[in-house]
């Protein structure tokens, strides 16, 4: 066995099991956080791709007239198509409200785009329905339940006999309508008049990479109302997973940084305690390189064990951290990735090496003779610090506590830095939660500046508009008509907006609201995707209508990751609004919805806007858990650093006790030191946290298409309390770790080795 390895193993044997375990645990926590984040980011993709393959690769979904769709089946770009499928729309009662639904007969299982049955069986009688899997999980609908559907044929009650996943759009609640499947008799019962039925065609392309180009080309064909390419749907399905995973991984970096400072601090303390042993080894012939190598190997062995454990924990945890996908597709299975193991080991290895080498070099370069004759460690010491503190009129305990912190500036800085990272993590987490809360409580942040929606289908638009304008409960309204549109060879969502959108409260971030024909207001994602800016002019095709538009501004929109363009409805004459979006003068969305139902009659389908906060719960808890993790690691480090510092000073504490320090003063001196570290951590961590929060939150809001600058800082109360709270935590930690020493007889302390 090499001398270096022998030294490393001897060091491991000499460590207390608790200290060794703590180092490995810190490495494990950091690795687990990073691996979980990376896994969440990547685990959704393969799962979605698998079901895409199982569904026969549905690259395009084309909506339009049945005849036109039949004509498209022979298009050269198509490798295969399913049958032209009839569907109707309706409202499904879910809980206290209702949700828009598209009801179709399922194509044969082998057809392109056939929905995938998840539970139960397919409907075989008129009174049966297969429910959208994601919506069923979200709303707690189970096989055997009875649901009520309000469609053209009237209110029908159906029995749920199964659930299925359908890839024609992203999953509820990110996308609606939800998709339901009935047998042909069931469809006829829901839409007895063929005029109430619509058609769609699902196609597999010969070249899947050409989906956007094909969508752009077909979108302009006669009789085609819209085209949805699979890449857009896939992106929409995975957006939340990507953002959530990135957030987890970012917090994992926080844990990793905290871990680095923890290891550096404990390594410095441990090496100081082992200085005599190291000098003895040097005396018997160990070179500096061997000493450093041995000390580094000792830490890396623990780090490697921790990284593997953390990788395992992160891998096991990742399936439980799915956002959005799990409802539709069930939890993903375990995905064991050697790459993530290598990344975890590399991250932990680099961090631990950086954290160990410097103190190890210092330890190896100490004057051997000084150590062997028990001379106190040389330090740059505290002559200046001592003189400075003498000038301050501090109580003896405070004076001593602060002095000990300042006497070892490097180690104190490491301890404070670890705590500062925790403070920053808390600030970032609090900011994220505040920003999330904004998105939930201010629907305009997500591009939905209304309180209730009235479905346009089956209503007389002019009558509805007149009714809305006369209602005292209504502050304003606008209409929207969605079309898949094309710009060049790429497709996106274009929205014709009628009524008075300028008063609708869209969150216009740059430029001006949409006022006149020829103008376009776009989402940030649209500008980013096409490399455009406010003031640019674009020529698009909305359905088969060519439009020349000047971009007058951009607004916050999260639908289709912000790749949305709004223009005036006057430019799409004859189009029926998909929905009337109504703002309340006062009162809740539910109250407005009730008033609208009363005014517009039972035929009108009205939905109050609902804050989709359930999905955010996992995100919120995960943020809090990660911030808590960083905090725990940092506090453990603070406690360990203060404890080792107190042990190093045990003899001095004994001397102070001989002079007359009481137990309380012994505790107070340590609390003072801890408080100073806490204050330093707060002062550094607070601005760092705010800057990091701005950067990360901008990345997040840009990622979801809403654009930068939407973040909302944590409450000022939290910010004001940060530094005092950090000081208090430091003081409590200081007092806690010295309790045992404070109770130790002074005679033991003055004999302390």
């Amino acid at each position, binding site marked *: 066995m090499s001398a270096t390895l022998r030294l490393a193993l001897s060091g491991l044997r000499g460590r207390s099991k608790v200290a060794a375990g703590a180092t490995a645990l810190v490495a494990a926590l950091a690795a687990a956080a990073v691996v979980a984040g990376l896994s969440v980011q990547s685990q959704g993709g393969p799962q979605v791709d698998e079901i895409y393959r199982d569904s026969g690769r549905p690259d395009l979904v084309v909506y339009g007239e049945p005849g036109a769709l039949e004509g498209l089946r022979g298009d050269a770009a198509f490798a295969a198509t399913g049958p032209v499928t009839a569907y109707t729309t309706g409202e499904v009662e879910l809980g206290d409200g209702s949700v828009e639904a598209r009801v179709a007969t399922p194509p044969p299982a082998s057809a392109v785009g056939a929905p995938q049955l998840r539970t139960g069986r397919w409907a075989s009688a008129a009174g049966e329905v297969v429910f959208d899997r994601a919506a069923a999980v979200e709303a707690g609908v189970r096989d055997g339940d009875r649901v009520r559907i309000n469609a053209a044929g009237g209110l029908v009650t159906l029995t749920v006999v199964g659930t299925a996943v359908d890839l024609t759009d992203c999953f509820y609640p990110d996308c609606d309508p939800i998709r339901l499947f009935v047998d042909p008799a069931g469809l006829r019962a829901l839409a007895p008049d063929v005029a109430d039925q619509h058609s769609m065609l699902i196609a597999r392309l010969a070249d899947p990479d050409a989906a956007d180009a094909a969508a752009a080309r077909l979108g302009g064909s006669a009789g085609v109302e819209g085209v949805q390419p699979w890449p857009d749907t896939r992106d929409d399905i995975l957006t939340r997973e990507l953002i959530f995973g990135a957030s987890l991984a970012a917090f994992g970096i926080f844990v990793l940084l905290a871990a680095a400072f923890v290891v550096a601090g404990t390594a410095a303390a441990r090496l100081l305690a082992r200085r005599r042993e190291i000098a003895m080894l040097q005396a018997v012939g160990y070179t500096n390189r061997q000493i450093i190598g041995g000390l580094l190997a000792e830490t890396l062995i623990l780090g490697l064990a921790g990284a593997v454990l953390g990788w395992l924990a992160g891998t096991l945890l990742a399936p439980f951290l799915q956002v959005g996908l799990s409802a539709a597709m069930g939890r993903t299975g375990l995905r064991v990735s050697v790459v993530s193991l290598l990344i975890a080991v590399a991250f932990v290895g680099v961090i631990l090496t950086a954290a160990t080498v410097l103190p190890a070099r210092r330890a190896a370069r100490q004057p051997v003779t000084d150590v062997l004759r028990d001379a*106190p460690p040389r*330090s740059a*010491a*505290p*002559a200046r*610090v*001592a*003189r400075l*503190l*003498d000038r301050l*009129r501090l109580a*003896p305990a405070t*004076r*001593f506590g602060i*002095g*000990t912190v*300042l*006497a070892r500036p490097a180690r104190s800085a490491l301890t404070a830095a670890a705590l500062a990272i925790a403070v920053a993590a808390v600030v970032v987490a609090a900011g994220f939660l505040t920003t999330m809360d904004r998105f939930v409580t201010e629907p305009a942040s997500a591009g939905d500046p209304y309180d209730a929606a009235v479905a346009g289908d089956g209503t007389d638009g002019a009558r509805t508009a007149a009714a809305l304008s006369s209602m005292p409960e209504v502050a304003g309204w606008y209409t929207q008509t969605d079309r898949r549109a094309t710009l060049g060879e790429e497709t996106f969502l274009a929205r014709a907006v009628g009524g008075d959108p300028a008063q609708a409260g869209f969150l216009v971030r740059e430029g001006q609201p949409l006022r006149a024909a020829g103008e376009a207001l776009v989402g940030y994602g649209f500008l980013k995707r096409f490399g455009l800016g406010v003031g640019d002019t674009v020529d698009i095709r909305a359905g088969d209508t060519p439009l020349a538009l000047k971009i007058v501004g951009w607004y916050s929109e999260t639908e289709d990751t912000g790749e949305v363009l709004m223009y005036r409805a006057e430019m799409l004459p004859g189009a029926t609004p998909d929905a009337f979006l109504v703002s309340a003068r006062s009162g809740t969305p539910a109250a407005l919805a009730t008033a609208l139902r009363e005014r517009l009659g039972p035929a009108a389908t009205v939905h109050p806007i609902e804050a989709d906060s359930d999905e955010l719960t996992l995100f919120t808890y995960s943020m809090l858990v990660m911030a808590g993790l960083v905090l725990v690691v940092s506090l453990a480090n603070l406690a360990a650093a203060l404890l080792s510092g107190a042990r190093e000073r045990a*003899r*001095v504490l*004994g*001397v*102070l*006790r*001989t*002079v*007359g*320090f*009481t*137990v*309380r003063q012994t505790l107070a001196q340590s609390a003072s030191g801890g408080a100073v570290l806490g204050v330093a951590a707060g002062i550094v961590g607070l601005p760092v946290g705010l800057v990091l929060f701005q950067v990360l939150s901008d990345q997040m809001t840009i990622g979801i298409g809403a654009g930068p600058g939407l973040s909302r800082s944590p409450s000022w109360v939290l910010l004001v309390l940060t530094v005092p709270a950090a000081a208090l935590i430091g003081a409590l930690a200081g007092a806690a770790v010295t309790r045992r020493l*404070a*109770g130790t*007889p*002074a*005679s*033991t302390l*003055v*004999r302390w080795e």
Partner: protein
Amino acid sequence: MTQPLLRASALVRTYRGGAREHAALRDVSLTVAAGDWVAITGPSGCGKSTLLHLLGGLDRPDSGEVWLAGTRLDDRDESGRALLRRRHVGFVFQFLNLVPTMTVIGNVELPLVLQGVARREARARSLEVLEELGVGDAADAAPAELSGGQQQRVALARAVVHRPDVLLADEPTGALDSASADVVLDLLRRRHDSGQSIVLVTHDHRVAAAADRVVTMLDGEIVDERDLTGAKDRPTYANLINLEG
């Protein structure tokens, strides 16, 4: 009858480490009168330092009593003993006596500050003692900037600055070269001449011979006690005992 300054009676102290026990003191009694200089000597591990620590209230005996200036010390808790030490006791150890993060003057004035003496007065009194002990110039230095002998003089200054009833010294010259040891011994002698009571633990017979009374310990017991007051040939006291081989 005058009450003794320091009285220890039937002290027993046993250290326990796992299953092993070590009887450091076995039924030790000692009385120190005001103005006495008592040297406690004996081989390593005989219980000298343990006895000194019990006398100064740094530890509590398993049984027995310690009375200091008419107050029972051993039944007080840690803080209670600390408060008594502030007023009545000064301690000097073999090395590492000083608080490294405080200047010399900061170290010396500490007992006064703890007693609540005004900072200005504490500083003046501390400087006075430092001058008296020949280290006044080093008042603003950090301990690490001083030699071992200087540090020990500063420790002595801190131990006497608040005019304690008794000075307890544990091998105060043990880590010094002979010249520095002579200086410290001379300082102790001068403090004693001015009325300071001293209890001193030492291996050094020459230092022990400077005391009025020499108590010799072996295996946790006092095995010899001699009064050297008026002895004609103190420096040769070392020749009288031969217990440390």
